[in-house]
């Protein structure tokens, strides 16, 4: 009777072990499902981070190029309008000035040829300003492209400044400001040298020239804003890049954990089957 009791106890222990092992297998199955969720989430985050790195890189490149493009082209337009202003004055001296005011270089040149040159300069100045306005349109479009970028938006929302970037680029255009420019205005050397700074700045040709030239200087200052933006974007880019490696490591460890859970689940499944075999072995042994 006591022997029977012993035997059945052994059987019960084996059955309990098999049940426990099956339960563990279910438990690890559940853990696999939960970790799978986390892994999926991490995969999404990693993909986002990869997209963000590419996005930041592209924004840094386009901002750098646009900034340099603006300096280079605005410098060109400034030079051209300065040259026009300067050479138009020189030619006015030669055409309308007194004999003693004219220079040797121009003295032997036919007056009509000088007038022709003056008219060419006028036409060129008008064309230059037209192309300058197109350039402003181009800069505006490219600047808008940068502004709609999510990282740029974030930086602009969290920081003060960037006034030129946010401003209306139409204000920088030359439009028809040159229309009223006194192309043939002549002031003798005497008048010029006797003029005070203020008087000189109140001359209608200088006023129009300044109205065209000053916005060129203003838009040129956008370079500083782009430089500031670039430094902030670069910090973000470096952070994203550094954290990508870290996130990838975390993702790897989650995957390893998941594999471990799968392993345990299969292991306990096989173990429960093995314990059942022990049970059958015991039952066969008990059979008379």
């Amino acid at each position, binding site marked *: 009777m006591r022997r029977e009791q012993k035997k059945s106890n052994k059987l019960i222990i084996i059955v309990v072990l098999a049940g426990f092992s099956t339960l563990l297998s279910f438990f690890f199955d559940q853990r696999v499902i939960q970790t799978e969720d986390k892994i999926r989430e991490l995969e999404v985050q*990693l993909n986002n981070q*990869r997209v963000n*790195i*590419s996005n930041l*890189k592209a924004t*840094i*490149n386009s901002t*750098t*190029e646009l*900034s*340099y493009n603006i*300096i*280079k082209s605005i*410098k060109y337009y400034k*030079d051209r309008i*300065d*040259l026009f202003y*300067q050479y138009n004055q*020189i030619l006015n001296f030669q055409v309308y000035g007194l004999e003693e005011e004219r*220079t*040797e*270089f121009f003295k032997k040149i036919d007056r009509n040829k000088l007038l022709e040159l003056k008219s060419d300069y006028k036409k060129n100045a008008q064309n230059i300003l037209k192309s300058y306005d197109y350039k402003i349109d181009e800069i505006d479009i490219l600047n808008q492209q940068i502004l709609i970028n999510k990282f740029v938006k974030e930086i602009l929302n969290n920081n003060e400044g960037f006034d030129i970037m946010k401003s209306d680029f139409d204000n920088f255009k030359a439009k028809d400001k040159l229309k009223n420019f006194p192309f043939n205005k002549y002031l003798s050397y005497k008048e010029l*040298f*006797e003029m*005070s*700074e203020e008087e000189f700045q109140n001359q209608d040709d200088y006023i129009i020239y300044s109205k065209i030239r000053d916005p060129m200087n203003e838009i040129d200052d956008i370079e500083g804003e782009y*430089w500031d933006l*670039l430094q902030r974007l*670069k910090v973000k880019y*470096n952070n994203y*890049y*550094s954290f*990508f*490696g870290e996130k*990838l*490591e975390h*993702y*790897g460890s989650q*995957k*390893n954990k998941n*594999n*471990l859970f*799968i*392993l345990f689940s*299969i*292991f306990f*499944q*096989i*173990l429960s*089957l*093995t314990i*059942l*075999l*022990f049970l*059958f*072995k015991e*039952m*066969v*042994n008990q*059979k008379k």
Partner: protein
Amino acid sequence: MARLKLLRFSLTALKGLNKQKAISFINLIIFVSFFALTASVVSMYYENKIDQIDNQIVNEEINILIYENQIQTTPIVLKNIEDIFNDNYKLDDYLKFLEIWNDLDSSIAPLRNTVYKPYFGYEAAANYGLEQMKQSISDAILVANNLKDIEEIELYNVEFIKIDEEIRNILRSEQIIRNKWQLKEREEFSNKNTGHGEDKEEYYKKYSPLNNRLIQVLQDQINFFINFNIRYFSRKKIETEKIINNLEIDLKKFSNQESITILTAFILQLIIFISVQYFEVTMETANAKRTKKK
């Protein structure tokens, strides 16, 4: 129908099988189950290896993104810097020609156009080049993974610092020249002194040495981009592509081994499962018979 067949099979088998043989059979299956357990552990080992290689490949691919960006942008940067030289030299040739007349009238080709204005073009290009150099060094550090890389970066970082300092010095000198001139101009305007035309030419002339220094800086920057940027990032790209290639070979090897191990584990598990089912059905039938007899 299938269940009946299995029942018949199990009953026949049990009749034909004595206790000793049954125990030997169970022992054999238990022995097999240890192989199944081992196979499952081995397959997980391979799975871990595959995951590690996968992550390494993703990491290397991100590095390739940086190399390609640098390799693509460097020629654009070089072109932009060279354009400044080319534009100025082209204009310079004409202006130099006209400068001969400056003895008679300095307004024909004033120093403002030949010396002063080009300075700002050179300065803008130098600053642009410097920003790009800064980005290159930063990217190079991000992707550096061995001592050789660090040594190379260190070497060119010295060059970068030298160029950076030179640009700062030039900008400082220009600021001093400009401030001095502005003070003088203010004084002359307030004194109604009209003879500042020649002084202004002198002022413009002071930009000439700064231009030469900036030209040298731009040439150094070109050297940096050719000798460091193109070489370093191209070398890194080739190395990374080789690493990815090797990793992919390993990945293929491990995934083949893993699939064989998983298949073995599955077959063994199936054998164990069928055996357990066989015993379960047999035992259940025996129990059912005993209950009926009672």
